[in-house]
Structures are given as C-alpha cells and as structure tokens.
C-alpha cells in the first residue's frame, strides 16, 4: 500500500493545468512518466534531493491508468483529491452536476465504514 503516493499523484496533477489535460488524454502514459520522473521528487526541495523508495503497487498503478475512481476510493485514496481532479477532467463532458451525481452512484455499493484514508 502506498496511499501517500497515490495522493501525491492526484495532488500534483490536480494543481497543474497541463498535467490535468495530459492525464485526461493519456492516462497510462501520464502515470508511467509521473512514476518515473516525479514520484520521488520531494515537493519543497531541489530535484537533486530526491527520495529513493516510492513506487505504486500494481493495483494502484492499474486504478490510476484506468481512471478508476471507484477502485481509488477502495484503496483509501483521499476522496477530496480524487473527486476534484476527476471533475476537472470529466465534468466538462456532462451537464451541470451530472458527472458528480454519476460519480456518487458508481460508489452506491459501499457501506460504512469506508476505507481508511489515513496515511
């Protein structure tokens, strides 16, 4: 489990307009490149001061490559980060609030307690 890294992906993509578009259009390519180039970047440090140990699990990588927000919820990704980024990518393809409601319906099978989001 590397919930922190999944959150880091969602967070760094969501705050970068170019990355939002790239992830919308080419999810698999964006995830691969991000994991290779950015996963171990410490956000407040120069690029020479990288971490050495961060990597997705196979299931996390698959969920991100397939834009699978239901699986991300199940893995304990922070739901605010997932929702915000997915609205940015796909809300524009739907009428007002249609995407948000469909997003919730896709999670209707879940009952409390939800997966733990603590990192």
């Amino acid at each position: 489990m590397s919930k922190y890294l999944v959150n880091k992906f969602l967070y760094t993509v969501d705050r970068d307009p170019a990355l939002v578009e790239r992830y919308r259009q080419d999810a698999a390519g964006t995830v691969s490149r991000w994991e290779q180039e950015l996963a171990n970047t410490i956000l407040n440090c120069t690029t020479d001061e990288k971490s050495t140990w961060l990597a997705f699990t196979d299931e996390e990588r698959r969920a991100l490559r397939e834009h699978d927000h239901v699986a991300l919820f199940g893995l304990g990704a922070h739901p605010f980060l997932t929702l915000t980024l997915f609205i940015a990518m796909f809300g524009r393809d739907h009428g007002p609030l249609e995407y948000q409601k469909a997003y919730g319906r896709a999670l209707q099978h879940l009952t409390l307690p939800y997966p733990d989001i603590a990192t």
Partner: protein
Amino acid sequence: MATVAAVIASTHHPFYYRASTATGADRPPFADEWVAKIEAFRETLTKARPDILVMVGSDHFHQLWLDNMPQFLVGKAPYFDANWYNEEREFGLPRMTLPGEERLAEHILRNGLDAGFDLAFSNELRIDHSITCPIITLRPEADLPIVPIYTNIFAPPLPRPGRFVELGRTIRQLVESWPIDARLAIIGTGHLSLELGGPRQFGEHGPDPAFDRQAVDWIAGGDLDGCLAEVTLDSLHLPGNATHGFMDFMLMMGVAGAGAKADHVDSLDLFHTMEAYFTWYPNGVPA
C-alpha cells in the same frame, strides 16, 4: 485592550460566489434567497464595526501537504494572496490579496505556545476558500487586516474534537489579552454533514439532515456539553465522510463560550449540504 466585537461561525460554500453573481438562465433558482440570507448575515458583522478579522479555516491540500502537515497553523505575514487555480477552475473564485496583522499574529503565536498549543506558523501563506468564502460573504470589500488560523480537519490523524474546543477558548483569551485598542471579529468556517467523493455526495440535501438540525441546535444554544458528549472522531464518519469539518464549528463554540446563545442564527437547506450562519456579540448587541 482589544475587544471581541463579534464571533461568527459559518459554513463555507464555494459555489456562493458563482451563484450570487450569475444572471439570466445561469442563475440558480435558490440564488435570491441565498443572497438575502447572506446580506442579513453580513449586516451582523458590519454593525460590529470590526478593525481586524481573525479567520479560522482549513487548507484543502493547497499549500499544506502530507509531507509536512501541521495540525494548527497561524499565518504571520504582511499580506496573504488567496485562492488557487483549482478553485478558479471549479468554483470560479477570484484571486485576492488580503492585508495581514502581524502584531496580532505574533501575540497569538507567542502566547498560544505558552498556553500549551504548539502552533505552527507560516510567513508566506496563500489562503484558500475556507477563508475567502467568508470574506466574500461577510466583508466583500476585503479591506480589513486578517490573521488566518488553519486547522487540520482533512488529513488524519486529526486532533480530537475537544482539542478544537480548547483551541477556540484559547484564541478568545489570546485575542482579549492583546494590549492594543482595537475591535476584533473572530470568524471561523466549517461544515455540517458533508460527503465528498463518496456515494452520498450531491444529493437533494446534505447527507444527514438529522445531524444538521442537531448541529444547528448545539451551536445556536452554545451546548458544548451536549455536543462534546456525542461527537467523536469516529462518530463524525457517520453523517458524511467530510463531516470532520464540523470540528471548526466546535472550535467557534469554544470561542463563543459554553452556554453562549447566538444572537443571529440562520440556515439554508441546499442540495449537497446545508448552509448555517451564526453570530454572537460577547460584549452586547451593537446599536
């Protein structure tokens, strides 16, 4: 000495700005009622004639991140830029720059540390909609200096509800011990029941209207004992997965004081979430 001219607790609904400024077919049917309630709420701050605003909110993974996450943080800077790209994108919020009140921030930090709160600080803080929403609703001129205080209601492990109440009590004491002759308002925003990114989001009402009614009663009546007896970190998962933001309302109940009945209480049942607005005048209702 400083005077607490008003204590205000509010939800922070990022869609208010867009709803209230929309015209024609874009204007939602509930906008006029919402604007009327906000204007009445705004008047409660205006008539308190504040000089400085202490603003309690919570960063939504904008500047504060999981590699370095403070529980409680005070902004001490001459200015605070505000609102972020993803808030412009999703909510249409405008970029803003607010003046800071560094002397009060310094007082809160020094004396807060001495009072048992290991407050983090930031000398360059870009604030987000948890603080700019109440500026937009309550003081749209955005002309008063602020001291922003951020709480972590977002990234577990979180402080427990009682700690938020205690911080609220402490903030009230710190503000009242500031040896400067100024009128202060302490304004904090949180949530009632709220679900984000889960199955109960974006419904006809908030995810738990019964919790919302109970919460409004607790806040309006200053019923800290009743609230603390029922609200725990675990219980807050039940009304909705983002309901831990209610702890900022509990913080504001701590500021207002146990048993303090609010002088202004209003609410508005909207899709997705209930709005709620409270004002207390600890030193009497202004003329």
